[in-house]
C-alpha cells in the first residue's frame, strides 16, 4: 500500500514538473537570470 502511494506521489510530481515546461525562450532566460541574481 505504502509503496503504491509513494509511486503515485512520484508520478504526480513528475506530472507536475512536466506540466511546467518553461516553453518560451524568454522564460528560460528569466530562470537563468534568477539563478545569477540569487548566486
Amino acid at each position: 500500500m505504502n509503496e503504491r502511494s509513494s509511486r503515485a506521489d512520484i508520478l504526480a510530481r513528475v506530472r507536475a514538473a512536466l506540466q511546467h515546461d518553461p516553453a518560451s525562450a524568454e522564460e528560460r532566460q528569466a530562470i537563468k537570470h534568477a539563478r545569477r541574481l540569487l548566486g
Partner: protein
Amino acid sequence: MKLVARLEQSAPIPLAADIACDSGELLALVGPSGSGKSTILRCLAGLHRPSGGSVRCGDETWFDASRGVDVSPQQRRVGFVFQHYALFPHLSALANVMVALQHLPTRERAAHARHWLARSKLEGLETRRPAELSGGQQQRVAIARALAREPQVLLLDEPFSALDQVTRRKLLRQLIELRRSLAIPIILVTHDLEEAALLADSMTVLHHGHTLQTAAPDELLARPVSALVARLTDQPNLFGATVSAQSAATDTTLIDWLGQPLQASHHAAFAVGDRVCWVLPEAGVILVRDHQADRENTFAATVSERLAWRGHATVTAYIADHRDVALSFAIGTAVAQRRGIVPGARIALQLQKAAICLTPADPAIGTHGSINADPTGELRK
C-alpha cells in the same frame, strides 16, 4: 538611499537613459515595446552590461564604465520580479524562497522563508510547486523571493502582464499595501498606463531607449514636454495649431485652430506665427449647457460615440463642420444618461484654458489631430 543611473549603448537596443529613484519611491518606466524598459532593469541588476554610463545605489557604485567597475548581480542585492516570475519549477514555494536566503545559516532559512510567504498571504501553500499554483500565487512567491533577500532595490518587470484582470486588480491592491512598508527604491516596468498611474509616484517615458520625460503621473498627463510624450501616454486630444497672439499681462497665448481662436494660458517659449501642438487631458473638456455656449473656448459638437464601463462614460464628439476632428472626454454614466449624451446628440464643449498645454510642433500631428494615430504600430503591444 537613492538609485541613480545613466545608461548608454548603441546596440542591440540603443540606450541614453537617466533613471533616479529615491527610497520609498515607486518609479514606473513606461513606453512601447522595444523602448528599452526591460533592458534598463537588467542593466540595474547587473544582468546586462551597457557600453557606457554608471549605476549608483546610495554610497555604492555598482557600475561605472569609465572606471571599469561592474559589481556582480548577486553582490548588488537586487530583488527582481520577472515577467514570467522565473520560479524554479522543480522546487516548492518554500524552497524557491529559501534559495534567496543563502546568506543565512541553513537552519534559519526555512523559518525566514515561511515568514516571507506569510507576508505574501501564501500560508498553507509552502509545499506546492509552481505548476501547482495559480498565476497570482506564483507572482506572490516571486515577490516573496525577491523581498527575502532584503534587497536594496526592488525591480518589477511587468509583474501583472500574465494575469487576468480580476487577479490583477487584487494583486495591484496588495502591491500598493506592500510598498508602503518598503523603504527602498522600487522600479516598475509596465506598458499599462493605468497601472503606472495607480502605483507610481513618478513615471519615466521611454522611446527607443531615450528618457523623454520624468514626472508625477498627473503632471505627465497635464504637461507633456512634447507631442511624442502625449502620443506615448495615449492622450486623445492632441492637435496642431498656429500661435496668433501672446499676452503675458492677461496670461494668454492665443492659438489659431481650425480657423478659430483658442485661448491657452501663457506659454512664453513660443512666438507669434510658430506652429505648435496643443494637448488637453480628457478632464479639461467640460460639457456645458446651451446658455453657457458663449463662454471662452466653447465649441459646438456632435456626439459620435459613448463607451460606458463601471459608471464612467468616455464620449467622443466631432466638432461642428469638422467631422474628422474628434474630442474625447469623460463623464459619469448617470450624467450622460440625464443629459441625453447618445450618438447624434448636439452638445457644447468648453476647452479649459488653463488645462491646454502647448508643445513644439510634431510632423505627425496635424490641425485635425494625429495624421496617423499609430504610425509605427509601436504604441500598443
